């Protein structure tokens, strides 16, 4: 799946180093660099709406990658990812408000704090798995949600917490245009880190734990250590994503981090492809854009007179909501390996054309 290689004929790998390159081929690497440069031009070409969508994609994608490291790579499960995402948001606001540490530094620090909390809630993972672990992480979701509403000193309680805008060398990033680049920076860094992690000894240990924990243990992999580490790294990513979300909004309210968001994160990685870094990004883009595309589709109908009555617009609103659930179901049935797999197949098709294999 993730190892599907599309190297041109004659491109041999003679060392392990070559075998674990971040990008399979030079073309892919150049395409990725060009992709980042093209993305950097978005605010100059497209309007504020698209810039906002990119910002949304970036903070969700970072958090979703964390979940994919846990679920897709290590084979653990978490139903409490939104709570860690929220913890990161509150932690960064708290660090910045109480110590005055600049936001750009408080974001990674919030990531570390969230990692510590993730480690704590990941402790049961050392002993339990599957459904039991799912329920343990569900408890994390509810405990943290309750904590957000109660811990006045940390979260401002039900009033929520104010989060200052990002400040770069004395320049306050107030508008979306500048915040876009902060997001792009974090997105690229975190995705590179994620990809690198998977090439490392630890990353391979994660995959071994996922594929067969008994064999992994026989091979000398410390299961407890790697399961906990996976929880910590996953929470670190969630914390960074959440912190960016908090500073973008300027205000963090306990209301936003419910179990529904946790499920949405799971939706992102299922649709994108479990165990795929690139798939995580694709899944996030899909999940963020789907409601918008549906909204615009519903909006197109408004040219017809019959579609403007309250009964029809309300009915369409329900259809729009159901589409998200439907998309997840259809992906589970027809594309269980997610968008990443589909992308590989499209590449393979063009590579092998006109032969089908």
């Amino acid at each position, binding site marked *: 799946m993730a190892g599907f290689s599309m190297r041109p004929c004659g491109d041999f790998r003679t060392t392990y180093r070559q075998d674990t390159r971040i990008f399979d081929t030079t073309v892919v690497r150049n395409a990725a660099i060009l992709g980042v440069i093209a993305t950097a031009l978005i605010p100059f070409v497209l309007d*504020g709406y698209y810039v906002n969508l990119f910002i949304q994609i970036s903070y969700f994608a970072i958090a979703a990658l964390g979940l994919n490291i846990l679920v897709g790579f290590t084979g653990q499960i978490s139903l409490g990812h939104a709570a860690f995402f929220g913890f990161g948001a509150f932690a960064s606001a708290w660090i910045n408000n109480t110590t005055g540490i600049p936001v750009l530094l408080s974001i990674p620090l919030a990531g570390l704090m969230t990692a510590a909390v993730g480690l704590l809630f990941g402790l049961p993972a050392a002993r339990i798995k599957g459904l039991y672990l799912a329920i343990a992480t569900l408890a994390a979701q509810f405990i943290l949600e309750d904590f957000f509403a109660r811990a006045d000193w940390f979260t401002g309680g039900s009033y929520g917490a104010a989060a200052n805008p990002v400040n770069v060398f004395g320049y306050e990033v107030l508008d979306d245009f500048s915040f876009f680049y902060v997001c792009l920076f974090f997105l690229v860094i975190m995705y590179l880190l994620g990809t690198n992690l998977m090439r490392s000894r630890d990353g391979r240990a994660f995959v071994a734990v996922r594929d067969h924990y008994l064999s992994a243990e026989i091979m000398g992999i410390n299961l407890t250590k790697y399961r906990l580490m996976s929880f910590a790294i996953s929470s670190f990513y969630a914390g960074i994503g959440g912190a960016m979300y908090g500073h973008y909004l300027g205000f963090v309210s306990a209301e936003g981090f419910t179990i529904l968001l946790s499920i949405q994160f799971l939706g992102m990685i299922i649709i994108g492809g479990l165990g795929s870094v690139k798939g995580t990004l694709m899944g996030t883009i899909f999940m963020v854009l789907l409601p918008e595309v549906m909204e615009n589709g519903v909006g197109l109908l408004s040219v017809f007179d019959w579609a403007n009555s309250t009964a029809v*617009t309300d009915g369409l609103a329900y259809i729009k909501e159901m589409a998200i659930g439907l998309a997840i179901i259809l992906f589970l049935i027809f594309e269980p390996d997610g968008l990443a797999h589909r992308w590989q197949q499209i590449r393979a098709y063009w590579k092998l054309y006109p032969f089908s294999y």
Partner: protein
Amino acid sequence: MKRLIAATAMVATGLSVTAAKADEVFVGHLMDITGATGFIGKFYADGVRDALSYVNTHGGIDGTILDSESVDYAYKVPQAIANYKKWRSRNEMIAMQGWGTGDTEALISFAAQDKVPVYSASYSGHLTDPTAKNPKTAKPAPYNFFYGASYSDACRAMVQWAAEDWKASGGSGKPVFSHIGDNHPYPNAPKEACAEYATELGFEVTEPVVVSMKPGDFKAQCLTIKEAGTNYGYLANLGPSVVSLVKSCDTVGATPKWLANIWAGDVETLKTVGDVENYVFPAMTSFWTDEGVPGMDLVREISKMSDSSGEQFRTHHYIRGICSVYYMKEAMEWAKANGGITGENIKAGMYARTDWVPKGLEGVCMPATWTAEDHRGINTVNIYSGSAKGGEPTVEKLTTVTLPRRDDWLGY
């Protein structure tokens, strides 16, 4: 000659098209009809939608048409932000009609930065402090407005009524007050403010009773209420959760006087509860069935925008949506006459008058005053008592409480 006429006609048409475009302003409308608060959001959204279309079909803002779009964001904050950004960058939105706690709070900074007045149905006390004068205010909300008393003020008014009711009913000793609601920003919004005032008025305030926002069997919580000897129970949740709580408490014999918040008190709720007495709730407008209210004629006309028969019953949430739009409309009219309809001028328009009621809605919306330092538009609360027998609700007005504009209550 013909050519001349044709050319003149073309120029004239071209001009009129340009003029029509220039004479339109965009107002976004976020609503929740399918999400977590949809069952109540729908009524409010209908009021806003109908009022916006009515304004347009009756001359707009002194000739300026309100181009608007109603989007169901299903109580999801990211979608609310995306829509806000879309409207801002593509439609040059100058004002917005919003909805709940989540989206309103997420948009505070953006609205302040873009100078877009946001009229919401989130009545959290901290939205009333535009300059963060009160040290307790987490963030100033200079471009946020709402029509009605804040959750805190409405609760204070009911506590004040309860204190008098206790005396009038010959109660001895300290009456017991309990806050009953989920541990979430919306039910918690008035928790401390209301408990403080209750203590000030001589109530014994118990530990808050936590009841989920989702309906369920709440007998355990009702037994706690019974054991605590609660005389006045403040219902901070809404809709189905409140219905199940009242029913559960009936079963175990815990029947304090219920004080509901504004979203938990309406005829629909009473009907669903079926059998209940002494269900006290606040209202910020007259009721659909009230007679002799001059402004109700306009409400009925507005209602015909989506129900041509004019027969459909409307809750007071619907009417509150109309008030929210009409205050915005009049502020826009002021703005148009004083430098043009921009977000900044609309905000100034909100401050231009004191104790004002939108024209045509006399008796429906209450006189309101907003100032640059105080966004508590209304500090008067009408208190009603509802009862239902076999699903047949009756509602009677108890009193009107006017609260002082205390400095320590600003933003709290």
